[in-house]
């Protein structure tokens, strides 16, 4: 409950996540003490704006676009309530909510998913049947991740502030035990001193919740980013478990990573198609006019194929078999493996992660030192994989540690990561096109269009090849900064400080 100062009166706003079917239960609870009169209601389908990584929602904020109007809600801070609906006060010239505009430097906000927004207005009367407060109930049912946000706004009629506070107290009482957890909220706090296996398990379990939050978006095909985020998070769990193989029982770990790999495999082709379709527009613009028609045909072909592949992935994710496997994964991560030690006897999480980090960094530097300008793509791919593992470990460390250098190192490695990622995408696209052309050659239905498509593919491969050369050069330059002594010094310093911190706490 948070009273908001307004014109000579207060407005109380309560926001929470809840199963939408509980709405009636809430209203019934209120009716035991008050008379609730429904005045009006509206329902509309809105677009949720957010970054690819749901930065806003993770910060418990929501930006909605309903019928051309923006609204922006801070779900935790009622004082940032934007208005009953949406007003120009939250908009700037480019029609983006101010908060988003403010953060544009780091974020790319886009139309992310859909939400059903239901507004209901009530008048609350006391036992004299006198109106004492207006109640505005906002239900936002977001498709992906599946979140059900209820927002109650109690606006007392002038002179009835006390009644409104009593009303909100009753709400809070009815709500007890009814609130739901945000998919990104941790089930348990992760502390540097806790046993390493427990810390890693809890983190992986949280990440798995995020994985699951993207399922509906993939099934409904809301946005290709849903699949991307789904895969990024599965990979994160797999990488972290892989990095800590020495501390978990072998069979336990193997069962988990095998299952995750198997699930990833089912989505590989769809992701490749998404990446390629996304890149097609850029390629089409770079191609000479004579090849553009073929590029359009290729794109249509890819889209058609994507549609089929999306159907397969959606059917897989909606299947009982998949859901059962996911439930089993959740159970395995939530339940400690045999012989897991308690926080007093086990090895501290921070020590284990720092140890892993140092080892990984040295391994990566070794690989970078070995790589030559003419090296195979595979060598660069391996460096990229090492870099990714290092980054996941750093991001994990950032979750529970206060060590100053973590952020700095992550920042320092960002460009390196971006370049290696871009290079890898180009390699994947190149390989994909080669394989795809083989498929076209064997398809009799495409005979007539084959020549145009082949020419376009040839043109695109030339573009990719040129780009690869450019990026490779930049990558090689960037490896110097990773081999830089200062970075190594920073990591060693961080490891030392982290270890000292743990020793002191013991």
């Amino acid at each position: 409950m948070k009273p908001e100062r307004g014109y000579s009166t207060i407005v109380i706003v309560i926001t929470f996540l809840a199963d939408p079917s509980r709405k009636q239960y809430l209203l019934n609870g209120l009716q035991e003490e008050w008379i609730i009169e429904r005045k009006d209601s509206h329902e509309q389908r809105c677009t949720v704006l957010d970054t690819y990584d749901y930065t806003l929602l993770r910060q418990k904020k929501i930006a909605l676009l309903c019928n051309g109007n923006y609204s922006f809600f801070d779900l935790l801070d009622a004082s940032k309530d934007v208005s009953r609906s949406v007003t120009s006060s939250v908009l700037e010239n480019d029609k983006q909510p101010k908060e988003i505009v403010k953060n544009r430097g780091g974020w790319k906000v886009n139309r992310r998913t859909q939400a059903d927004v239901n507004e209901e207005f009530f008048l609350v009367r006391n036992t004299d049947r006198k109106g004492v407060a207006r109640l505005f109930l906002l239900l936002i049912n977001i498709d992906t991740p599946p979140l059900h946000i209820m927002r109650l706004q109690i606006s007392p009629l002038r002179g009835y502030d006390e009644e409104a506070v009593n009303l909100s107290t009753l709400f809070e009482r009815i709500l007890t035990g009814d609130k739901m957890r945000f998919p990104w909220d941790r089930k348990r706090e992760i502390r540097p001193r806790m046993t390493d296996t427990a810390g890693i398990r809890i983190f992986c379990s949280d990440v798995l919740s995020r994985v699951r939050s993207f399922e509906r978006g993939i099934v409904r095909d809301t946005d290709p980013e849903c699949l991307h985020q789904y895969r990024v998070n599965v990979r994160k769990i797999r990488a972290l478990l892989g990095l800590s193989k020495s501390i978990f029982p072998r069979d336990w770990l193997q069962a988990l990573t095998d299952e995750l790999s198997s699930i990833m495999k089912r989505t590989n082709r769809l992701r490749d198609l998404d990446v390629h379709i996304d890149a097609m527009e850029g390629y089409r613009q770079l191609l000479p006019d004579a090849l553009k028609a073929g590029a359009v045909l290729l794109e249509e072909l890819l889209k058609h194929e994507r549609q089929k592949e999306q159907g397969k992935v959606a059917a897989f994710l909606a299947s009982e078999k998949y859901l059962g496997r996911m439930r089993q994964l959740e159970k395995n991560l939530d339940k400690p493996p045999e012989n897991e030690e308690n926080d007093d006897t086990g090895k501290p999480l921070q020590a284990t992660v720092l140890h892993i980090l140092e080892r990984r960094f040295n391994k990566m530097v070794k690989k970078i030192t070995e790589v030559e300008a003419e090296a195979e793509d595979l060598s660069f791919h391996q460096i990229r994989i090492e870099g990714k593992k290092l980054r996941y470990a750093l991001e994990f460390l950032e979750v529970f540690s206060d060590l100053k250098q973590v952020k700095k190192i992550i920042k320092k490695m960002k460009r390196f990561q971006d370049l290696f990622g871009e290079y890898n995408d180009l390699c994947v696209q190149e390989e994909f096109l080669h394989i795809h052309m083989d498929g076209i050659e064997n398809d009799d239905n495409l005979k007539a269009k084959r020549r145009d498509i082949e020419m376009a593919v040839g043109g695109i491969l030339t573009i990719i090849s040129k780009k690869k050369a450019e990026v490779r050069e930049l990558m090689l330059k960037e490896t110097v900064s990773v081999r830089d002594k200062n970075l190594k010094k920073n990591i060693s310093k961080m490891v030392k400080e982290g270890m000292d911190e743990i020793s002191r706490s013991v």
Partner: protein
Amino acid sequence: MKSVALYSIKGGVGKTTMAVNMAYFESAAGARTLLIDLDPQGSSGFYLRIRPKPKSRGKDFFRGSDKMHTMIRESDYQNLDVIPAPESVRKIDMHIADANEKQVQIQKMLDLFIGEYDRVIIDCPSQLGLMSENIFIAADAIVVPLIPTVLSLNTLQQLEQFIKRRQYNLDKFYAFFSMVDQRKRMHRETVDNAENLPIKIFQNWIPYASVIEKMGMHMTPAQFYAKNEKAVRMIEQLLQEMKEYGVL
């Protein structure tokens, strides 16, 4: 801001009924309206289901803006706020008597609402004392309901003499006939021969009708539950006439 007081020395003449319906009429037309109940019976608040706040006191009327504003309660009707009468409003004359500028206490109170409200309707108690004199100075118009009986007309004359004696402005006093029972010859004749009254009297009048008395049962303005009843339409015609005369 225009302020109108419903006033009569005599009780039970329909002041509160008119005050509530007048306030509703004005607010429904879009005017930001405040109904102030100065009658310790608290009937205006009762008709609108509004009780005074437990801690509000009669002296709060004269304790500045903050105190005054905390007494305001929003009604269930758009644009209509009410200051219901706490029981201790009966001591209001005493508080005025203690004040330095005894004649302008109500004027000062009304000044607090300039800019906030377009209309202030005051439901006055039946008395002729310090508070009444304050009202005579402060209100833009004083409307007196009259039952067409000898006694009622007699009190109107008493009022006229008092106003003249104290040199208040008689031009802002208006009257209308209320609770007219057309079955009674005396009522009919009094209404028909009203031109000799000492203050301006409206042509429209309010009949004695059970539909109006039922306000107490419905606890809403009569226009809200019986808009199409003849008696209620007559109230509206009277209010319309008041508007034409610039009272509202």
